[in-house]
């Protein structure tokens, strides 16, 4: 299960937070834990370089893209490698929607589209689409090109 996708700005303010199968009372813990993890480790990291952490059976893969830090949390079959796949899809979809590596403002300007992309990529904790070109078409309700 892909337990969470979280995006924050460089100050640690939440931009997008989506949980799957995480009890409401634990979400705040996760939020602060991930933001702290980013603050501790993401300084000076290149765009899209993937970092990894784990706690017991839960894995976290995270990265930075312009002004935005992105975290994905998973367990069981969503281990560090599957999460790397998921986060790569997310970063490339965001870059695609924004046209470049996003500033915070650009990210917020494209907020609606980014939400749609996320909706195509992760559905209730399962990875659904992985190809950025297809996602780009799907959010405009266009069928995939290979079809």
């Amino acid at each position: 299960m892909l337990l969470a996708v979280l995006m924050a700005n460089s100050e640690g303010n939440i931009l997008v937070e989506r949980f799957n199968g995480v009890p409401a009372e634990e979400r705040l813990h996760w939020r602060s834990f991930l933001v702290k993890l980013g603050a501790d480790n993401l300084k000076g990291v290149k765009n899209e370089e993937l970092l990894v952490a784990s706690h017991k059976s839960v894995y976290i893969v995270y990265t930075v893209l312009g002004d935005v830090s992105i975290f994905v949390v998973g367990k069981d079959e969503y281990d560090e490698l599957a999460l790397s796949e998921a986060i790569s899809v997310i970063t490339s979809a965001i870059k695609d929607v924004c046209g470049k590596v996003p500033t915070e403002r650009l990210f917020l300007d494209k907020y609606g589209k980014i939400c749609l992309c996320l909706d195509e990529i992760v559905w209730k904790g399962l990875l659904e689409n992985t190809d950025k070109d297809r996602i780009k078409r799907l959010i405009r309700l266009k069928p995939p090109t290979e079809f």
Partner: protein
Amino acid sequence: MAQPLLKKDDDRDDEMEYSPFLGIEKGAVLQEARVFNDPQLDPRRCSQVITKLLYLLNQGETFTKIEATEVFFAVTKLFQSKDVGLRRMVYLMIKELSPSADEVIIVTSSLMKDMNSRTDMYRANAIRVLCRITDGTLLTQIERYLKQAIVDKNPVVASASLVSGIHLLQTNPEIVKRWSNEVQEAVQSRAALVQFHALGLLHQIRQNDRLAVSKLVTSLTRGTVRSPLAQCLLIRYTSQVIRESGMNNQTGERPFYDYLEGCLRHKAEMVIFEAARAITELSGVTSRELNPAITVLQLFLSSSKPVLRFAAVRTLNKVAMTHATAVTNCNIDMESLISDQNRSIATLAITTLLKTGNESSVDRLMKQITNFMSDIADEFKIVVVDAIRSLCLKFPLKYRSLMNFLSNILREEGGFDYKKAIVDSIVILIRDIPDAKESGLLHLCEFIEDCEFTYLSTQILHFLGNEGPKTSDPSKYIRYIYNRVILENATVRAAAVSTLAKFGATVDSLKPRIFILLKRCLFDNDDEVRDRATLYLNTLGGDGSVVETDSAMKEFLFGSFDIPLANMETSLKNYIQEPSEEPFDIDSVPKEVKSQPLAEKKAPGKKPTGLGAPPSAPTSAADAYEKLLLSIPEFASFGKLFKSSAPVELTEAETEYAVNVVKHIFDNHVVFQYNCTNTIPEQLLENVVVVVDASEAEEFSEIASKPLRSLSYDSPGQTFVAFGKPEGVPAVGKFSNMLRFIVKEVDPSTGEAEEDGVEDEYQLEDLEVVAADYILKVGVSNFKNAWESMGPDCERVDEYGLGPRESLTEAVNAVISLLGMQPCEGTEVVASNSRSHTCLLSGVYIGNVKVLVRLSFGIDGQKEFAMKLAVRSEDESVSDAIHEIVASG
């Protein structure tokens, strides 16, 4: 929002300052949502408002029931618009609002229309939304469309219905299971993602049908798998099939191993890792099978990508637990990871090295770790401390340097959990390695001189009270303990008073001095401290008013409190609520332990360290069992519990009733404790008993059975059956078990059970009592000394042929598990490529007889294994008994 007066250079500031959501407020956005009701819809404006609503929801904002309903009804109006972009937003918004069952009806007709639309993408999205918000009744109406959609030509439509199926399988399994033909067809799809989703769903549908899973794996491993994700799933299912099928007896080869090995050369890293992990987790994996996987993982240790390094070291860390020698080749690469920037990787590397290192490398490793410890967080330090504890138990002769390391880190800065881990480790080492006792106790004493954690100080004082008086010079601890009385808070002072009393009770020469110290405590400003001091002075003073005999005094001071605290609390509360003239009677408190409901027992496992509450203090399972059995009158006369086995599962996973059994061995008796869990919410079981057929266990005769009165859903309970057996004899036998009970229907809405029930039975797996159940695993710190001091009087030596075996490791493990003894000095690990091996075992045989075993293994030219078994014990009949176990095993 636009600021035309600003220059272009100021764009950046502009961006920071004027976020499109600056000052966003829920109330205002809900007002704006009224545009959804306009007769002339403005799609752009509506999309903007939905975006704002999404922003609010993604920030963790919640809508009240009324707000959500209002927005939901307004959003449904947007179906009138033909704007494609807006429709896509509407689909998302409805999912996010997750309307309640009575509201869904408003939108179903629109969605059903879209589901039959000619536009593929309307179909795909409508399926996803409907499946998200639907309930069982609606699902049967749309099932036909969903089945069609699974085999739709458009991969997006097919994936939408397949992923919906995966979700719906949790809530409506009987419906989704009817789709297996279509899903089977989708597995052959040429679209990579459709195949991936179909494979996942098909496996979930058929997971309990071994034959079907095996067929699926056989056909796909020979066919084409189009995406790395699907390949990973297939590898996982293949391992499951391998686990269930075992070796091919004719060729000695493992089915599908070639497929897994082939995957190690796949171009996707994800697949390589999955295959490597699958190979390392094969049961009874040989070093020939393991090697290719280890080689691949070793290459990844020096990858430039942190994720790959992490994945590799994580897998190797796991392998090291069972096949330490196989990982030794990677030690050099692993050592360079100690300085890895990613602390998770560094910690895994360290703990792996601690597992694979040999006795001679311990000191060098400790030096490296000392530098590493200063710059990692507490959560990682705890992992290292645990690994060092295991290392010390493996190489007891190295206790000095390891204990020193622990005491050094105990002096450094650190949080409660970390300090507790160190203290727990020192306590365990003191218990298991007698030589380490005195130095360990002194380290703990020094720690409490400057300990900021009351909990740890009191725990250490308690431990010191039990162990300190038994040392060669107990007087040296008194100063540390009495310092607590002078310097600490009331809780610690009270604990120190109790500890002093224990010293006074055990060491006669110290008694007068302890008296003086306790008398000083009578003037403490805390009443608990004064009370304890008074009580202990009277107890030790021996005027007979508190305790009458010396042994009663010791029982009073050292005896365990055998009443569960929760029960005590409840009884006291009841007593206060109903005032009475009678004094409170502690004997009236029930001793039966109430079991925890399943939901509480399951560790969340997702919470990051440092956020949760500290775990409760470790309690020994043996103590808990003993207390539990003593509280049952039928078993109270059985005497001292010799050994309790680990729970043995008597049912398969995910069955209606989960039952495991713990074998409790007494001198003249064996008690089976059946732990039962009812996993069906609609049932209440009553009068639950296990009917045991002991016809294949001739020496046992059933003497008592304690039924379980009721077993409600998810709340485990225990039923017991006791057997008599000849005293001191390691009787063995096979028992078949049948669970018998009265089942009553429960109304799920009210939770009430019907009055009448039906008697029913449930067949459980057989259970065996084996020779190893009569031997306790008890290690010795220095085997050579123990062996020599035992002397050759009761020694018995013989040789045995073990026939052809897979490997030396396998032969060694087989004998260790047959005897159930504790391997000493790390001799359970066989060096790779060696042709002979000596393994040292120690244990205590029933009747409290110490036993030491020296096993020498060898292989002859024809790959036949032979073993020389030398046994020394305090009783020659026990030495003979060990030989009998091996001869008949």
